[in-house]
């Protein structure tokens, strides 16, 4: 198994069970995981700590994923450059397009297997598999 031990991933999702699911997928492979319950909390976290990747849901209370993306990309580097993987139940072409316009690096439609999530995380964190 590759060593992801220094790679830090922020999961932004309002559903506790889903956060647990993604966290367990990543932690068992050595990633360090932090969590936020919505976009607003996510922004706060990225301003305070460095992250190699943010995994972001779209539909969330207080601040949704799209608004988070626009806000993130308007910050200074290096914060604005954090890769963002959007994972949503919205499966329409226009949903993915809206996320890409807002600055998402990639868009996955739920359900996402734990192995798949870990593979994408490794790619975005620049870790050779």
């Amino acid at each position: 198994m590759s060593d992801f031990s220094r790679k830090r991933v922020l999961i932004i999702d309002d559903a506790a069970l889903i956060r647990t699911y993604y966290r367990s997928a990543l932690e068992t492979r050595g990633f360090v995981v932090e969590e936020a319950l919505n976009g607003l909390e996510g922004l706060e976290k990225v301003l305070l700590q460095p992250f190699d990747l943010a995994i972001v849901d779209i539909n969330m209370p207080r601040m949704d994923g799209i608004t988070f993306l626009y806000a993130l990309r308007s910050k200074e580097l290096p914060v604005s450059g954090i890769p963002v993987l959007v994972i949503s139940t919205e499966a329409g072409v226009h949903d993915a397009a809206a996320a890409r316009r807002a600055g998402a690096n990639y868009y996955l439609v739920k359900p996402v297997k734990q192995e798949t999530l870990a593979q994408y995380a490794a790619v975005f964190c620049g870790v050779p598999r």
Partner: protein
Amino acid sequence: MAETPPLITEEEFQKLADFLYRRTGMVFTETKRYYVERRIADRIVATSSQSFAGYFAYLRSEVRDEVEHLINAFTVNETYFYREDHQLACLTTDLLKERVAAKEPGDTIRIWSVPCSTGEEPYSIAIWLLENWREVDAYDIEIVGSDIDTRVLEAAAEGMFGKRALMRLSPELIGRYFHGLDDERWRILDDLRQSVRFSRVNLIETKDTRPQGRFDVIFCRNVLIYFDDESRRIAAENLYDNLLPGGFICLGHTESMSRISPLFEVCRYSGAIVYRRPRELRA
């Protein structure tokens, strides 16, 4: 040698049994006298009452939540994670597959564990879904745990468990979903605690059951056996109202809904017998 006089006379026992029945629907006959006496003796000491008569008067005066304390003392709360896991397997292989057929990703799936005791069952459902259901992140899953006993609900929300409760879980699962506090106690991850909502419900009180809303799947194991026919019927009707049309209810393996109420359809799956609220009213 003189025998120790019983703590409670036959007449007193009957008065107490009537009282418990009216308040909880649970039936205690003379065959359960030892069980009842032990708990009453504890409550007499705890309330500094001088005798059963004194205690019963105190109980009926409805002061200081004594009714609640007594009900708490009479509910059986010992359980463990992954108990009756064939039903959990049935949940992921059959029941949820049927339930999501008519749903869209992102829709809500509601699961009710009642009675939930100290949380082992609703948390087991959450862990089982994380481990065994490929679509766990595609739906908004709401798990509710309810019990008549407020003391166990507080413990459930705390999410601390001992060795015995975890005996059926592998070390990998324990490592993944719990923090070890010491050699004897583990605490479930905060995210898992937040994924289950707890509420106090007496199954024979419609005013308690109705606000819980309607569910896709209800686990109601080993509680109806404590009720008499009348309370069992009321509880079954309440549970029926708490199911979405086409929703499922799982009982304990020794229980049969067919004996209690004709409202449900029996469904046989490879792993378990479960009952379903019919999708549409029969003509």
